[in-house]
């Protein structure tokens, strides 16, 4: 049933990157003039609103979690597959027994499970850490866990933020960021600190 007030941007996802069965789950929703982050433990929900006019920056950082999970899945698959191959070689020299079938299923089903896990992780693409910054806080958005998913969400959200705030030119960015970095004088670098 569609919700008139909010549009779902991401599914509910655990807050920790590796915490598959974490208690608190978070999801991202699009409102008329704000983004809504919902943190839920199943029995209570807490809400954080980020109004489009207040959002200063959204940073998307590619992480290694994708590669680590791929190695974990393929490693587990390799162990199961190795046992299966050794078993097949052994069975090839003698007639099949009922225990052999149990062994094949016992190692074959986990091998298939790990391989499917690897494929899902691989095709979902690189993982990401997304942070949303306002004047008073920097909030990590755990529900945006993949680069591809983040791009899809940003395609919907960026036009709304730009409509609320306007576009920044390259010159404005350059001037704004340069002004924030204090110039360092070469003389002051050699002056020892004064203890008071």
């Amino acid at each position, binding site marked *: 049933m569609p919700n008139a007030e909010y549009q779902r941007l991401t599914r509910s996802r655990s807050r920790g990157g590796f915490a598959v069965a974490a208690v608190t789950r978070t999801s991202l929703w699009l409102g008329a003039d704000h983004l809504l982050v*919902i943190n839920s433990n199943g029995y209570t929900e807490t809400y954080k609103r980020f109004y489009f006019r207040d959002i200063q920056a959204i940073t*998307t950082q590619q992480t290694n979690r994708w590669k680590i999970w791929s190695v974990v899945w393929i490693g587990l698959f390799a162990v199961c597959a190795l046992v299966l191959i050794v078993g097949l070689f052994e069975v090839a020299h003698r007639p099949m027994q009922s225990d052999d079938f149990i062994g094949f299923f016992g190692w074959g089903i986990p091998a298939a499970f790990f391989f499917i896990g690897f494929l899902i992780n691989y095709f979902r693409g690189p993982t990401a850490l997304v942070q949303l910054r306002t004047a008073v806080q920097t909030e990590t958005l755990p529900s945006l866990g993949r680069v591809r998913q983040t791009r899809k969400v940003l395609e919907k959200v960026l036009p709304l933020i730009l409509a609320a705030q306007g576009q920044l030119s390259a010159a404005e960015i350059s001037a704004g960021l340069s002004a924030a970095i204090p110039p360092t004088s070469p003389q002051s670098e050699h002056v020892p600190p004064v203890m008071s």
Partner: protein
Amino acid sequence: MSAQVPCPKCRVPLLPEACNQPEMTPCPGCRVPLQVNLFPACFRKINPGKNGEAVMVEGESSCFYHPAKKAVLPCDSCGRFLCALCDCELNGRHFCPACLETGKTKGKIKSLDNQRTLYDSIALALAVYPLLIFYFTVITAPMSLFLAIRYWKSPLGLVRRSKIRFVIAIILALLQLTGWVILFIALANGRHT
């Protein structure tokens, strides 16, 4: 607040060239691929708070909470005159501190609603989980039924409106209670015969 945007990983301030690019660019500090979308709010100056002007002319409207301060506008909720210090602006509307607090506690101002209890989920959990150890249902089934009826009209989550959990909880609780009643009747009849 500085307008520096640091890398989330190494905290090195990012260069202007790395911002608002269509693709990811490596961080100058840690070389991690990054995409930074900057918006005008990043360079907007934050307006300092106002103290409120003192009443200078006899008979001039003054603030309800600070009679010595000049009123600048009325509260959108209660209509009391407010000085610049007492004016709490929220999404273009102006409230006095008392109405803001009331709106938050009573849930009248929806944009201040930052937490909700999901009574439907609690009722359903009370109806389902105790089935693992059936004896507990003699206590939990009435509790589930009470919660479902008591909070039937209370607002659910901000983005969830279906009462299906309440309905399932009521059905399960009624079935469990019916089971207990039948069991007690059967036990009572068995004792008499």
